[in-house]
């Protein structure tokens, strides 16, 4: 323990001795307040910054720095500019993009935030930054039995990593329960109930870093979908058919030993505290023909509640999920076409649908969304508020001649904050809808012509 603190002190001293990296503009953070929410397995950090321009030229943007492990696990960064005071606060979303800095110390990653209007010299602006980390809670012990509670490590820095000088900062960490095994104490740090407070720290130089480890109990369901393939099939005859293939795991401490069903059912509060057996999926409001099945067949343990704003499907896999266990299943449903397909002013059609996974509080490691456009669609084009990998495929389905174009959107590390609408544009001439009935009509006509030929052809050998 003493050796660990010694190592931390050396690392802090090394970081503080590095000369301050001078960015293009001279900014300084006057006040920073960080709130880290560790209640679920998705770590949410809220940063309230008051940035001042101490240079002589106006600053149009600022950089947010993240440590190399955090950059890998970062699912989303959002920034809002706060204007107005107290009751009349308005929040304006700001543009946040990943940035590359050539001389970044120790592989620090950066995100660039562009201000609404360039910050003049001597001016201050208040920002609120939200960033979400996935896979950041490390279970320790790595394996637990059925009757044990799940304890996890959270690695972070008590001092906010920033390329700018921070005058005053405080960090609040919220844990899901009052059981905290240990936490690194960097003075002044204290713990009260479910909250650990680090700070206030005064006048920290840029790139100062004070690693802390918090070891606490987290029994929230660590629902991780390893792979999700969502197929949205558009049919101009009136419906949108969505099929979702899930591969779900429990991403927490692995289960060791036997699974005793007797213990699990009799002492439910103690046995399998970190396991989960039910999940909630939020579906569109006017949904019908919902099915929930897997390779074996239909799974009947589900409840569907339709509503005006949304529908909720509460479903249970065939067995409760403990650490390291997997469940594979398919959920499918149909929604009316007029809720999601629109015509733009330039004549093109577009599908307006929600990205992401319908399951609540779930991380998706690899998400693939396939939008199957009807036969005869041309020039498909997808618009999303964040970067995804786009691709085109061809799918052969009912009554197809040339096949249907499929727009494939692929994204890794998806969290529920990614459930925002996206659009897929395409051009389609309504006359192509007649291709399908024309195929059926010609098939029947061929049968009639064949019977006509049979009746008319004279196969007699003898002359009449």
């Amino acid at each position: 323990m003493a050796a660990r603190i010694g190592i931390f002190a050396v690392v802090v001293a090394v970081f503080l001795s590095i000369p301050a990296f001078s960015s293009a503009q001279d900014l300084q953070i006057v006040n920073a307040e960080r709130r880290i929410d560790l209640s679920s397995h998705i770590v949410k950090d809220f940063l309230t910054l008051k940035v001042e321009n101490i240079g002589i030229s106006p600053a149009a943007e600022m950089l947010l720095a993240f440590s190399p492990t955090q950059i890998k696990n970062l699912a989303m960064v959002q920034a809002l500019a706060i204007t107005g005071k107290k009751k009349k606060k308005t929040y304006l979303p700001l543009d946040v993009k990943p940035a590359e800095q050539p001389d970044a110390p120790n592989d620090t990653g950066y995100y660039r935030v562009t201000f609404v209007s360039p910050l003049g010299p001597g001016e201050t602006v208040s920002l609120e930054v939200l960033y979400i980390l996935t896979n950041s809670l490390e279970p320790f012990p790595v394996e637990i039995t059925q009757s044990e509670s799940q304890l996890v490590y959270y690695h972070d820095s008590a001092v906010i990593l920033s390329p700018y000088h921070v005058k005053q900062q405080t960090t609040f960490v919220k844990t899901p329960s009052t059981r905290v095994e240990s936490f690194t104490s960097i003075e002044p740090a204290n713990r009260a109930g479910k909250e650990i407070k680090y700070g206030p720290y005064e006048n920290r130089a840029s790139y100062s870093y004070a690693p802390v480890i918090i070891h606490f109990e987290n029994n929230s369901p660590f629902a991780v979908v390893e792979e999700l393939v969502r197929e949205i099939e558009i049919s101009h005859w009136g419906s949108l058919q969505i099929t979702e293939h899930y591969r779900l795991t429990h991403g927490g401490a692995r289960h060791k030993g036997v699974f005793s069903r007797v213990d699990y059912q009799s002492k439910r509060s103690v046995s399998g505290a970190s396991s989960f057996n039910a999940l909630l999926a939020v579906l569109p409001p006017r949904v019908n023909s919902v099915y929930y099945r897997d390779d074996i067949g239909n799974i009947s343990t589900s409840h569907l509640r339709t509503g005006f704003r949304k529908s909720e499907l509460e479903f249970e896999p065939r067995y409760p999920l403990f650490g390291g266990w997997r469940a594979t299943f398919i959920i499918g449903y149909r929604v009316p076409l007029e809720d999601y397909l629109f015509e733009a002013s330039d004549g093109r059609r577009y599908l307006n649908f929600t990205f992401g996974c319908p399951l609540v509080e779930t991380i998706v490691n690899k998400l693939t969304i396939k939008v199957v456009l009807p036969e005869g669609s041309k020039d498909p084009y997808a618009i999303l508020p964040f970067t995804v990998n786009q691709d085109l495929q061809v799918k052969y389905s009912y009554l197809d001649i040339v096949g249907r174009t499929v727009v494939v959107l692929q994204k890794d590390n998806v969290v529920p904050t990614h459930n925002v609408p996206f659009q897929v544009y395409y051009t389609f001439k309504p006359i192509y809808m007649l291709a399908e009935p024309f195929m059926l009509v010609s098939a029947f006509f061929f049968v009639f012509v064949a019977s006509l030929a049979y009746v008319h052809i004279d196969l007699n050998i003898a002359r009449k």
Partner: protein
Amino acid sequence: MAAKPIASPIPVALYPTLSVFTLAIGLVITAIFFIYETTSSRKNRSLGKELATSAVASVFLGFGSLFLLLASGVYV
């Protein structure tokens, strides 16, 4: 941007009714066609009449089977 929702050209609620009626009419015309085939002799058979009847029958049967597919949930 004008967001005009696009719906099916035929109201979805009409699919089952439409399929029953178009298939019924199609089958009746098919029956007329085959009755004509069996009751007429080789001399007074008119190819034009046969082709016309079979064309109309296949149109009704084709659309009827399309509406039947749509009504049963196979949105082609």
